[in-house]
């Protein structure tokens, strides 16, 4: 393993991210903050939603922004760099196994998703307070779940980015991301689906369910949530699955 090359690849991504910092920040935080403002402030403030909803909403919003950030950070550059311009070629020719070029992308996406998730909490807190009740009983567990959520979003970005062509980006967001978010227990806990028996079981194939529920379990355990053990196992399985699929797709794209 050539760590020098790996770190240089990471430094390149960090450099590009720094160069695009303004748009990147807007893209990462604008949407979650608007959600938090409308649902947590406007809807709760006007009495359409109970005050407790503020606390219920935050983990879902955090999961959503992490998944968006991770997928976007990995998939979008890959889609464009594997296209006509083959911008990634120089990195594929670096003296390092090409799987590590893919892993580097995942690590870069994972870091961005972690930052997005952790920054959303204080930002949301500013908008939502007072009445936001967070109870982090076990910070280590919280970091562990956050890490697994970031991992699944970055690995998912790798799998998607290496499977989707540029002309299908719109389709990817409307067909994959949108249903995933709405059926991902982001705006409601999984237990809220108890009246929809089949749907409640079907949504369990959606990894975002475990992300939202896992963050709910570690941030606001006062609400009903899936068992943490199930969450950790499921997220680990999804992380590995997406990484394996992503690496395979990456190899297919990289070598003809």
């Amino acid at each position, binding site marked *: 393993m050539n760590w020098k090359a790996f770190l240089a690849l990471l430094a390149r991504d960090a450099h590009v991210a720094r160069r695009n910092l303004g748009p990147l920040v807007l893209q990462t935080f604008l949407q979650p903050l608007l959600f938090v403002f409308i649902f947590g402030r406007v809807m709760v403030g006007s009495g359409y939603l109970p005050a407790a909803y503020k606390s219920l909403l935050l983990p879902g919003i955090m999961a959503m922004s992490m998944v968006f950030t991770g997928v976007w950070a990995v998939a979008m550059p890959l889609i464009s760099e594997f296209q*006509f311009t083959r911008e990634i*070629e120089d990195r594929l020719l670096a*003296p390092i196994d090409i799987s590590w070029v893919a892993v580097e992308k995942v690590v870069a996406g994972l870091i961005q998703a972690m930052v997005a998730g952790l920054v959303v909490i204080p930002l949301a807190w500013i908008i939502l307070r007072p009445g936001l009740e967070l109870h982090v009983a076990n910070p280590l567990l919280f970091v562990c779940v956050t890490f697994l959520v970031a991992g699944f979003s970055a690995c998912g970005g790798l799998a998607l980015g290496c499977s989707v062509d540029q002309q299908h980006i719109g389709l990817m967001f409307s067909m994959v991301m949108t249903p995933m978010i709405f059926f991902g227990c982001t705006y409601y806990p999984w237990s809220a689906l108890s009246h929809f028996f089949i749907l409640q079981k079907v949504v369990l194939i959606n990894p975002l369910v475990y992300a939202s529920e896992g963050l709910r379990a570690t941030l606001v355990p006062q609400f009903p949530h899936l068992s943490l053990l199930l969450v950790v196992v499921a997220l680990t399985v999804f992380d590995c699955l997406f990484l394996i699929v992503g690496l395979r797709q990456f190899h297919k794209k990289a070598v*003809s």
Partner: protein
Amino acid sequence: MDSAIRTRALCKVYNSPPPAAVGRGDGAAAGKRRFVSLKTKDAKPQITALDGIDLDVAPGQIFGLLGPNGAGKSTTVGILTTRVRPTSGTAWIGEYDVWRDQTAAKRRIGVVAQRPNLDFSLTAREILLFHGAYFGLSSQERSERANQLLDRFKLTDRADQLVRGFSGGMMQRMSIARAMMHDPQVLFLDEPSVGLDPQTRLLLWEIIREYNQKGRTILLTTHNMEEADTLCEQLAIIDHGRIIASGGPRELKASIPGGYLLRLRFAQLSSALLERLGKLPGVTEVRASGDAGADLYASRGGALIPEIVNAAAALGVELSDVHISEPSLENLFLHHTGRSLRE
């Protein structure tokens, strides 16, 4: 002495059109298409891009792969640079098997692809600096070498601009500078002078020779005879994924029977006329070409015309067009394939 580049029985069959990485549909353009009749409805065409390529390039040589578009040049470079998986056969860079020891092979090569593939998110200088970093150069080495290369390739005044806005020629220069950044033992240049103006082409040739004088091996592909003739010490002429001739440019040109090629066109052509033409003094080979044309290889050029006219007149046939060309690689290609390199 060990070869710098070596391939044995290298074959590549694509099951789908070759991707952009392999160049402008190289292989697909003129490669052999074989439709395999499978029972499934989506039987895929198989395209044989390489059909048993053996290459030996000595260290310190400028080696040219000459051939028309779609001959398999870019696929050969693709395999040698780890970007294409060979269907069978082996390729080595020095002592390293390119497919098995990819990282070791990549460390020793610099690659200029047919189409510029620069990192559009970076400036010209950053491209060189990061490339140097991937190859483990120290920060001082990186910045010194980047400055030298930017200067040598006349890019210093645009060094801190994003390459997105560069012209085609500038991008090409930048790609070559990047490939030289880590001072590789073997430099691959796939059609390096396509799209360059004559002045830049000369600069490029000068830089290639200069780099070669440092003892580096260079493999370049081209369909430009002049480039192959002036720059390369050894050549392999490739067509339909096979090497049809190889050797030094002079040696190759000397191998054309007679040397001169006279492309003749008559009002009509008969076998009697072909026979007569073949018996003219100095003529080594005659072939019918097209409807009423004949290609005549001979040791004389213009001096043969009166005799050709006479031979035709004796059979009551009129000579309608003549084109004489001196010994050249173009003629060599034509001799072996019956097609022009530009076709």
